[in-house]
């Protein structure tokens, strides 16, 4: 890497670019994830869902994408940490009174907090499903299906609540993050930005509802 | 000492080009070793500093603000004149020259003013090249508007922020040189003394306003670009920090002060609302295009504007000046407002205001728009709404500003306005080279006396500041510096620097030993009142004599009873103010003396003894066709020198707006 590129990636705008690009990439993953999740609503006892998750677990292309995905998540987190540390350093003495609500949305100011909650949720979530599907032989051996695993996990109301809270954090994170990513990429136009903002708004709400629907539906027994 | 204005020989049209073709130059290698000090970073200072640095000189710039970008040139609203004739309406260098000389009531030098008109077109080119976003037409060409006192459209503008945009343009040029290392910028520094060695200006003493440390700076030449002294009146449209200190220190070191009594009072300002008032805000002159100025016909009428029927209103400008009506020049409009208020017809709580009413403009525009939109039989409310729409488009930002400050909605109630001090035509006397009577000491922009005579036309201040800085001084300074190339940089340990610094230290020490009971502002307000009452819009012998005595008395009090809190070794705004007010207290007296001496009325200077039967200003060309240049003889003594004004081309005539 030439010093020029290194300078670019280490600059404030370079880091923002990485945040924006990884953010959008993770958003695209959410779409796939939400699609597979919604297969449970076929109400076929999880057959289609299991096929989907089977595909995701064994397709070699997906396995490569999965690595990229993890790199994306880590980059997103690491950049966020660096940026947050820098931002804290940029204001060593805080205000005694700061009326943030007068000029911005609380969730836009709380992306770090929401991200941290999301990360905690993600760890729990990975432990519940990803670790089980990859590193234990229950599922790979065919003893247990992903769908069955899910039903088991979501029997616990506490888990359901954690998931719903995680999804709410995700919703707010997206509510700011979606349109923010476009702004970072330099896309702000009087004609198109309102459209992006509207898409971002509805996307955040729909994707959160889809994700929340799954644990709730399984817990309540709406799907078999 | 005989004043030599050094106007080049030749016809008016060839003076400047001949001068440029024949003036001495400094070769590039020598420029590198010549140092120039620029005090002030407004249009004149920033443009001069950047241009000189581009030429290769070593430049140091000083400003008292926290950044060069904050100089008060930034507050000019209206525009900048230039004889471009882009509108094909018959404009020319000669016309701009003629309008400026006439507008100044024949009290400016022909040679200087013609040069100003000549370089005006280059200014616009330079600013546009710098990226100043001047207003444009849909075809992409620059837009112009008209301004008072002219019959052509030659004013370039950037909405209501022309001064801001031009200053930021000059500032960006200056910062470019700072980045290149050719200019050293010292913000939060105030010049407190000029250092002269063997009669030539060789440097300054400046105070670092953050640490209080006095610094010595050497320069082969010193440029004062420090703006006007309108704040001598305490209340003015100037910024709070505007002051005369640099010019006054120079004056005390031998620079003559030209026409100190020439001040411009702007007719459309928001009136004073109470004792707390710290400054006055100007409303653009353009409002007089559509607003009608009036007072009630009955003295002491306390009714609200809307309650006074049409027949009980006195549209006094339309009555007195049927030809020009509400569009008479600034000085005439201001005096007429004062006359009505003094006679007891003023409005508002203070009774020192007149109405500027947009009711008929709203009605008129409402009808026009209704016709344009094809609305049949519009209701009164509809008409009013239409009218408001048009007025908002034209003056929206000004109306907003008015509402911000007064809390009144000018679409519904008539505005209240009153004249306020706005600009000072007087300043340090300079010759054609912009050099003061101290060799090597130059003065540019509003700080000098040249070009505007006794009254400045709208949109000419920006023009003069940039003309001086970009296109005049970079040439004329060569004539002086070419003889200085053998002078090595003088050490600031030189006795002259030591003595000058000691003098400043002594003044600081004196301030802190007084330990009096009154704040600096207390004295400043008192001085302002004396000046406004007795040396303001109308002046007379008795009042001026009284004012001189009162100012002397106030000055004595100041030096006995002022209280400066804090210490010298820190950021101390009260100490800064004390320096400035101490100088205003001396300048105020000189202004009154000058006004007393000039027993004619001309431009912004109105002597009650010199008026026609109808109360119009009466100039006296036989006795007063000269520039008053005052020499400071120390101990409050001044000697008047006269520079005769010679009019080869235009012939002074009476201004009439009837």
């Amino acid at each position: 890497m030439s010093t020029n590129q290194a300078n670019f990636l280490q600059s404030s705008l370079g880091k923002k670019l990485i945040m924006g690009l990884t953010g959008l990439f993770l958003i695209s993953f959410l779409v796939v994830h939400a699609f597979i999740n919604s297969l449970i609503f076929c109400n076929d006892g999880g057959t289609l869902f299991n096929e989907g998750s089977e595909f995701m677990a064994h397709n070699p292309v997906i396995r490569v994408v999965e690595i990229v995905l993890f790199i994306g998540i880590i980059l997103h987190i690491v950049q966020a940490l660096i940026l947050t540390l820098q931002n804290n350093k940029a204001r060593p003495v805080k205000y005694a009174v700061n009326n943030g609500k007068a000029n911005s949305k609380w969730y836009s100011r709380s992306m770090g907090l929401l991200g941290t909650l999301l990360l905690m949720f993600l760890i729990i979530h990975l432990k519940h499903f990803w670790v089980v599907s990859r590193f234990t032989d229950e599922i790979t051996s065919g003893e247990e299906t992903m769908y069955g695993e899910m039903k088991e996990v979501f029997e616990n109301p506490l888990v359901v609540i954690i998931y719903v809270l995680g999804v709410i954090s995700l919703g707010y994170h997206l509510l700011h993050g979606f349109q923010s990513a476009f702004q970072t990429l330099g896309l702000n136009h009087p004609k198109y930005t309102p459209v992006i903002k509207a898409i971002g708004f509805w996307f955040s709400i729909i994707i959160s509802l889809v994700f929340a629907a799954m644990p709730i539906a399984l817990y309540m027994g709406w799907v078999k | 000492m005989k004043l030599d204005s050094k106007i080049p020989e030749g016809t008016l049209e060839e003076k400047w080009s001949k001068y440029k073709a024949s003036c001495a130059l400094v070769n590039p290698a020598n420029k590198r070793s010549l140092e120039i000090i620029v005090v002030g970073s407004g249009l004149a200072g920033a443009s001069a500093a950047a241009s000189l640095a581009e030429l290769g000189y070593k430049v140091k710039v000083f400003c008292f603000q926290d950044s060069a970008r904050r100089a008060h040139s930034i507050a000019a609203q209206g525009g900048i004149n230039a004889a471009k004739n882009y509108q094909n309406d018959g404009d020319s260098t000669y016309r701009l020259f003629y309008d400026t000389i006439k507008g100044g009531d024949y009290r400016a030098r022909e040679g200087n003013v013609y040069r100003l008109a000549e370089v005006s077109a280059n200014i616009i080119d330079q600013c546009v090249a710098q990226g100043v976003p001047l207003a444009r037409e849909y075809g992409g060409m620059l837009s112009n508007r008209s301004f008072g006192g002219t019959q052509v459209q030659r004013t370039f503008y950037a909405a209501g922020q022309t001064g801001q945009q031009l200053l930021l343009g000059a500032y960006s040029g200056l910062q470019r040189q700072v980045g290149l290392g050719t200019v050293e910028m010292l913000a939060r520094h105030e010049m407190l003394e000029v250092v002269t060695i063997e009669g030539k200006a060789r440097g300054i003493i400046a105070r670092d306003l953050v640490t209080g440390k006095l610094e010595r700076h050497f320069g082969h030449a010193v440029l004062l670009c420090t703006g006007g002294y309108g704040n001598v009146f305490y209340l003015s449209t100037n910024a709070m920090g505007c002051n005369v200190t640099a010019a006054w220190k120079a004056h005390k070191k031998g620079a003559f002060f030209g026409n100190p009594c020439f001040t411009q009072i702007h007719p459309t300002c928001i009136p004073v609302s109470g004792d707390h008032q710290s400054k006055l805000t100007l409303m653009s002159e353009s409002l007089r295009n559509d607003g009608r100025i009036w007072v009630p016909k009955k003295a002491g009428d306390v009714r609200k504007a809307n309650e006074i029927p049409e027949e009980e209103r006195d549209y006094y400008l339309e009555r007195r000046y049927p030809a020009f009506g509400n569009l008479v020049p600034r000085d005439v409009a201001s005096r007429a407002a004062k006359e009505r208020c003094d006679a007891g017809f003023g409005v508002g709580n203070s009774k020192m205001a007149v109405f500027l009413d947009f009711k008929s403009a709203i009605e008129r525009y409402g009808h026009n728009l209704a016709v344009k939109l094809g609305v049949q039989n519009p209701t009164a409310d509809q008409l009013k709404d239409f009218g408001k729409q048009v007025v908002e488009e034209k003056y929206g930002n000004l109306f907003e500003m008015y509402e911000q400050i007064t809390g009144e909605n000018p679409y519904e109630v008539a505005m209240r306005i009153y004249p306020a001090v706005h600009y000072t035509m007087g300043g340090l006397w300079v010759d054609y080279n912009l050099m003061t009577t101290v060799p090597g000491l130059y003065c540019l922009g509003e700080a000098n006396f040249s070009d505007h005579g006794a009254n400045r036309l709208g949109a000419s201040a920006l023009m003069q500041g940039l003309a001086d800085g970009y296109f005049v001084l970079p040439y004329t300074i060569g004539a002086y510096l070419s003889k200085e190339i053998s002078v090595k940089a003088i050490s600031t340990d030189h006795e002259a620097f030591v003595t000058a610094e000691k003098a400043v230290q002594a003044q600081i020490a004196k301030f802190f030993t007084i330990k009096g009971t009154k704040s600096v502002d207390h004295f400043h307000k008192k001085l302002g009142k004396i000046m406004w009452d007795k040396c303001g819009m109308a002046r007379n012998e008795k009042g001026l004599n009284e004012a001189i005595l009162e100012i002397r008395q106030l000055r004595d009090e100041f030096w006995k009873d002022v209280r400066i809190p804090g210490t010298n070794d820190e950021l101390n705004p009260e100490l800064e103010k004390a320096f400035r007010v101490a100088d205003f207290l001396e300048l105020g007296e000189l202004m009154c003396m000058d006004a007393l001496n000039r027993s004619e009325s001309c431009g912004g200077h109105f002597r009650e003894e010199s008026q026609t039967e109808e109360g119009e200003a009466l100039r006296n060309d036989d006795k007063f066709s000269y520039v008053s240049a005052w020499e400071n003889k120390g101990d409050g003594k001044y000697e008047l020198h006269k520079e005769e004004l010679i009019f080869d081309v235009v012939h002074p005539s009476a201004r009439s707006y009837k």
Partner: protein
Amino acid sequence: MSGNMNLTLKIWRQKSAKANGQLVTYPVKNISPDMSFLEMFDVLNEELINKGEEPIAFDHDCREGICGACSMFINGQPHGPKKGVTTCQLHMRSFKDGDTIVVEPWRAAAFPVIKDLTVDRAAFDRIIAKGGFISVNTGNAQDANNIPIPKIDADLSFNAAACIGCGACVATCKNSSAMLFVSAKISQLALLPQGQVERIARAKNMVAQMDEEGFGNCTNTGACEVECPKGISLENIARMNREYFMANIKE
């Protein structure tokens, strides 16, 4: 006079850059609603001087909202609660009798406090010195009408150029980011044909200097745009991002 107010002010007092500061409470009485916020400070300072105390240092100059010197963080907002105005244009009628008003200096590592409410904003000047200009020496210019500029571009450029460099954007940004300020200058010049020649260097150098000054990073909360007294738009930040990315792709 009727309608006058009594208020409690809590003002940040700090003797010098190195000293520790704290909020100090000052009651002020009989404040006219027609006063500007700074005129209220004048009244308070006059009182303090008369009592033999040190007046409060604050930056101000033009007092008509254009020089950008005034800089007070009032009740948690730069330039106070009213939108589109600077502190000097904020009038006391925006407050009620009995209000407590907390006044702090701009807070940012890149804007160190000099004294009380006065901060050092020289970082902005240094950023401009790195590229906030068009390199045209005096006398180089061609006729001003030789390059026609579409009105829409000229207007957009003007809107960006309206920035007064007060630093409210930095002050209100949760990250103390200067991106609205920097992007306004980059936009103004990028939108004009005259600015094209130095476009790449300008974006790179100004952003590099901004980073070096220790301003924070933009997280697009949009607070700067809301608090900007001159209504500088977030579109400028997006434009700056584009300029910077393109500059780095090209060179």
